């Protein structure tokens, strides 16, 4: 045991990992004391700084070609807690910093503290919760200890739920309450699983567990409980019911972050669990179950998206569907086969490109709703003439959702498709193609009326500056389609399958 312990030492640049969490945490505490107007300023100053830290972490991982590790308090696991950043963590940190920066800039128009008052409720809460979300997300992507990840998940819940009901309408309060119940149910199951693992192995450190774990009833029970809990938080079918009302009713900037990043956090931990904690188990059956649920999510989510009357609800149901793709990664990237590296890259890329595309689309939809005074799809005729940039953003985002080139979504789905063909797991390929067609259908439902010639009455002038923010995010989703091969090599850094198995 001692030998393993000494192997876990801090690496150069490890302090950056702590800094990525400390910055937003300090922002939360400072904003809370100084209040509304200062909270906005603190958040907006910290965001570029946080982006810088994320970039330095990515650079550090890139240079060393190995994960960065930091031991908090200098205590090595199992007694202490380690932070760890591999390729997947680094790209998630970068994506988070970018999306949060854009959402923050976008939200300035929605959450200013009105002149003449020291502080107002919604801005105070929004800017603090935004930083809280950011801290929690960074914790999730860096956490190396399953209990620490539990705390991170709770932090995430406490920041995300109040954002849903900031406007105080009964409808949003109900959505927030339902979200909270699902989230709490998820965390308690996760914690129960963690308890079983601690009882069996006396540690919750991911690295130590992976080297000790072998199949036993306790481990299977833990895996089932933790996965179920995480799926409830990720809103994977059939645990998706809470997501559409919550994501569709939140303020646009919050919807963007919830759909782009928050559901990905619990997905990220699910990946950590199966690929880093439990790789030594025979995972064929659970992986097939996850992918089957993912397939059902793709089909049901897309069909429901097709039937929505409101733009934001359509985008929210599309999230339910796109989450499904992520879970196809489990059977395709498991083990060590010629196709697993590609499948891993495909899954990660789907996570990233959906984050950018969906954030862009929610921001654009928010602008449409603000400008028209509603977001009914039937009332979007002629939108292309008055808000061409927003329609363009919806189109670019749609490209990535459908999986058409050139876009990150295309590359991601192509990689997953090829992996399923090469591994002979053709059902997933069929589902992916069907999902692409259905996505084409719901994107068409939005774009077709937008390009119709009709005169729209506007409630407010279209805000060009804020449309540009959404466009920047949509372009990121497209740019991911041009990722060089070095990027895919980067995503493999720290994968146990490549280093642990000879």
């Amino acid at each position, binding site marked *: 045991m001692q030998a393993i312990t000494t192997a876990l030492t801090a690496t150069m640049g490890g302090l950056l990992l702590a800094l990525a969490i400390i910055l937003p945490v300090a922002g939360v505490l400072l904003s809370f004391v100084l209040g509304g107007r200062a909270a906005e300023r603190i958040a907006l100053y910290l965001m570029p700084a946080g982006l810088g830290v994320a970039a330095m972490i990515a650079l550090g991982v890139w240079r060393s070609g190995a994960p960065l590790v930091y031991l908090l308090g200098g205590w090595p696991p199992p007694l202490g807690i380690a932070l760890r950043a591999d390729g997947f963590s680094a790209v998630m940190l970068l994506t988070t910093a970018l999306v949060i920066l854009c959402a923050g800039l976008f939200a300035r128009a929605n959450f200013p503290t009105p002149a003449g008052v020291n502080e107002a409720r919604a801005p105070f809460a929004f800017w603090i919760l935004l930083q809280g979300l950011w801290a929690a997300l960074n914790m999730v992507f860096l956490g190396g200890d399953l209990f620490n990840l539990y705390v991170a998940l709770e932090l995430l819940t*406490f920041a995300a739920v109040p954002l849903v009901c900031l406007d105080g309408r009964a409808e949003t309060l109900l959505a927030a309450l339902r979200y909270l119940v699902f989230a709490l149910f998820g965390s308690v199951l996760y914690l129960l699983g963690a308890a079983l693992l601690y009882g069996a192995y006396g540690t919750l450190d991911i690295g130590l567990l992976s080297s000790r774990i072998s199949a036993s009833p306790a481990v299977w029970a833990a895996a089932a409980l933790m996965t179920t809990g995480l799926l409830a938080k990720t809103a994977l079918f059939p645990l998706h019911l809470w997501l559409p009302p919550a994501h569709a009713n939140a303020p646009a900037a919050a919807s963007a972050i919830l759909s782009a990043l928050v559901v990905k956090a619990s997905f990220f931990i699910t990946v950590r669990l199966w690929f880093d904690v439990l790789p030594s188990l025979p995972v064929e059956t659970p992986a097939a179950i996850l992918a089957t649920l993912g397939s059902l999510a793709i089909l049901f989510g897309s069909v429901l998206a097709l039937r929505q009357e409101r733009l934001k609800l359509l985008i929210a149901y599309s999230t339910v569907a796109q989450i499904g793709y992520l879970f196809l990664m489990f059977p395709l990237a498991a083990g060590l086969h010629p196709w697993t590296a590609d499948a891993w890259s495909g899954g990660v890329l789907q996570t990233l490109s959906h984050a950018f595309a969906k954030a862009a689309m929610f921001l654009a939809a928010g602008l449409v709703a603000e400008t028209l005074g509603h977001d009914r799809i039937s009332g979007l005729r002629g939108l292309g003439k008055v808000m061409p940039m927003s329609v363009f953003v919806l189109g670019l985002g749609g490209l990535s959702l459908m999986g058409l080139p050139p876009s990150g979504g295309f590359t991601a789905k192509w990689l997953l498709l090829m992996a399923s063909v090469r591994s002979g797991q053709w059902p997933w390929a069929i589902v992916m193609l069907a999902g692409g067609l259905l996505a084409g259908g719901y994107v068409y439902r939005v774009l077709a009326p937008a390009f119709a010639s009709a005169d729209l009455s506007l409630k407010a002038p279209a805000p060009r500056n804020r449309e540009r923010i959404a466009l920047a995010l949509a372009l990121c989703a497209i740019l991911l389609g041009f990722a060089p091969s070095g990027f895919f090599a980067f995503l493999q850094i720290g994968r146990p399958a490549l280093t642990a198995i000879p």
Partner: protein
Amino acid sequence: MTVVNALDIGLAALVLALAAWTVAAREAFAAAVGYVAYGLLLSLVWVRLFAVDVALTEAAIGSGVTGVLLIRAAARLRGATPALDEPLAPPLRFLAGVLCAMVAGALAATVLLMPDPAPTLAPQAVGNLPSTGLGNAVTAVLISYRAFDTMLEKVVLVLAVVGVWSLAPDACWGGSPGAPRPARPEAALAFLAQVLPPLGIVVGIHIFWVGADEPGGAFQGGAILAAMWMITMMAGLTEAPPVSSTRLRLVLVSGPAVFLAIGLAGVVIAGGFLAYPSGSAKPLILFIEAFMTLTIAATLPMLVAGPPEQPPQP
């Protein structure tokens, strides 16, 4: 079967009976009262497991403060409660019951089959105690070995306060939490509120202070102090401070802020974030714990008081 064993079985049966009552009771209010009794008995189980720190926390927070929160909510909701979803049809209810019984059974079997004695970190936790200067290993885990968890959990409390406050009507922003105080407090409650706090404050501070070496610490001491403040507020002797109060906000963040500041200082003076320099670990830890006690003592009552419901006083 020994006497002790029989007592354990009786205690477990009572705990389970109260838990079943909490689920099955017709009225939410009765269920909430049942939950408080349940929590108190559960803390006895914790004592039987030789986890006195947890027993204190469970009694003070898990049962006490949570109980006040739930009972008050049940009282306010009496009559109408918005339902979150449709009630399950009887066959589905039965099916859910069977499934939950299976989960419980599988879990019980798993726990019984798991290694006993279990793998443990106790030797390492105790072995490293000298470098922290502490005598209570649980406190050492909370404030040193796993300090990161504890610090962030305090941030969770701050976010919970923000979340609860964010539910205020806009017009009440900056005002005091809770409904306007009753004109005439109940005599019995007012009496308790005058007699208990001096005693409670001494006990709370004592529990915080001994926590370095014996069962107790910031959580438990803070919770007792919180209870004292809650009693005086409920009796109408004091009013909750307005949410715009800078002093209140400073107290609410002081625990995590001091923790973070000393943690950062550790980078310079002890070679790592959240590391303590050898030799002066104990005073630093006590310093952090003092502020955490303060933060908990203020946060718990503010969370129970809820969002501001009165417009700010001019």
